């Protein structure tokens, strides 16, 4: 493996990740509402924006806490402020990721991979969705796989995260032709085909925010 010297990640990385996620959801709020309106109930954008706004506020009061602790707190905040299907799912994802990071002051690529794997596992465990069910899993799972593969191959983390973002966005596009089997869109049966999943779109935003946070 080539020994690439990477800047260590720390609490600032997490804070930046959350801040960039917040900015993304602010910007994409109405688009996500529209996506959810087409085959759901039109609240997804507002819910995500409310949650990450609360996370940024909560983290601001936690100067000095280790990154794992910040991520756990972010997850708890999402559970307590979002509601809907996304609240418990995203809350669980970040809490699990936070716990996986542990108590250290910094973390490196392999730990980040394990954290995201834990996040994905949490979502699948709680929501029961599989690949192809037209949910956030369809973006999150390929992203985690791409990251894990790239890091294992020893690629620089920035490149690995670029690959993860690309995989997430590819996963988002792949939801369009799917018929939903989980969540509200599944009520529509065949009418859910032809629409991009809102939750998957959000997952790609969160992965891209991570890529940007690490890149800084």
């Amino acid at each position, binding site marked *: 493996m080539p020994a690439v010297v990477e800047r260590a990640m720390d609490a600032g990385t997490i804070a930046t990740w959350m801040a960039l996620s917040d900015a993304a959801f602010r910007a994409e709020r109405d688009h996500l509402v529209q996506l959810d309106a087409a085959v759901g109930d039109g609240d997804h954008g507002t819910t995500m924006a409310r949650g990450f706004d609360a996370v940024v506020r909560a983290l601001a009061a936690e100067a000095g806490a280790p990154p794992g602790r910040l991520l756990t707190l972010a997850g708890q905040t999402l559970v307590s402020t979002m509601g809907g299907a996304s609240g*418990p799912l995203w809350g669980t994802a970040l809490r699990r990721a936070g716990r996986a990071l542990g108590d250290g002051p910094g973390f490196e690529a392999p730990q980040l991979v394990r954290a995201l794997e834990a996040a994905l596992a949490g979502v699948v465990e709680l929501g029961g969705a599989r690949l192809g069910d037209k949910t956030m899993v369809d973006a999150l799972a390929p992203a985690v796989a791409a990251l894990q593969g790239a890091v294992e191959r020893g690629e620089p983390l920035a490149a690995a995260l670029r690959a993860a973002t690309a995989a997430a966005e590819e996963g988002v596009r792949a939801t369009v032709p799917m018929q939903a089997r*989980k969540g509200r869109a599944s009520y529509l049966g065949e009418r859910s085909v032809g629409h991009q999943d809102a939750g998957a779109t959000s997952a790609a935003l969160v992965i891209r925010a991570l890529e940007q946070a690490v890149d800084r």
Partner: protein
Amino acid sequence: MASAASPMRKLLNRPEQVVTESLAGLAAAHGDLLRYEPASQIVVRVDAPLPGKVALVSGGGSGHEPLHAGYVGRGMLDAACPGAVFTSPVPDQVLAATRAVHGGAGVVHVVKNYTGDVMNFRLAAEEAADDGIEVASVLIDDDVAVRDSLYTAGRRGVGATVLAEKIAGAAADRGHDLAAVAGFARRVNQRARSFGVALSSCVPPAAGRPLFDLPEGQMEVGIGIHGEPGRRRALLGSAGEIAGLLVGAVLEDLAPRAGSEVLAFVNGMGGTPQLELYLLYGEVERRLRAAGLRCARNLVGSYITSLEMAGASLTVLVLDDELTALWDAPVHTPALRWGV
């Protein structure tokens, strides 16, 4: 009126305050029955907790009024946890409500079967259990428009929720224990089925525009209560044809014994006035009678809604003597009141 034009035909201040301000208004109007706790965004029966009484907690996204906060009071809910519009409440609300009403005899959670409601209530129930509060969760899933299969999130909870909350609330008022009260709610769910149609879309305040476009002269068939499109779109039929559709869908799944006594609940989605709801009830009642059923009880009005959506749903509950007696028992809430 100097304020900027709003794209909605709604009485509100800022979209993100609709729910909290409406709850404050509800409490201002019905301070004899309930109080609103802004910190935890819950509505609690004014005299809660009642020692020794099983307590009922329900909740869900807002936009379905009077469900659930309008059913807090004597003989129905002890507390309601309203989320943002069409967004399940967070576990913190449910936990706060559960703690506020627990009178030592346990708490029933009436949960409509939506992914978000189920997960948020489950998280709260786990925490309540950690507190030593016994919680019995009852899942309501009466909507026959959705098939319960591996390919869906399962049937939605709709009209039966109102009936279950009324009947289980009466059981708790009569002193039944936790298992019995939960049992009555489950019995209602087992014996009730619903089906609905939309004649218009609705505008969630935060979205600011209709969730879907429905041209005049068409309807959405097999809708839920979240402004989502239905299973299919069809030409808008006459009230008679729509009654036939509703009764047919409900009875096909419910398959009640001929001669059964039923409660027929014709529910407005929020924007359909009483003139039409009673007309529809007449059509429904005739068809239920023709199917050999007797409408021993009925409920006609907008009791579980989808904001200002035009449309209606039918819920049929097969009664038995116990259910009828509990339905008739006194209830005193903002939205349902009799016998007191």
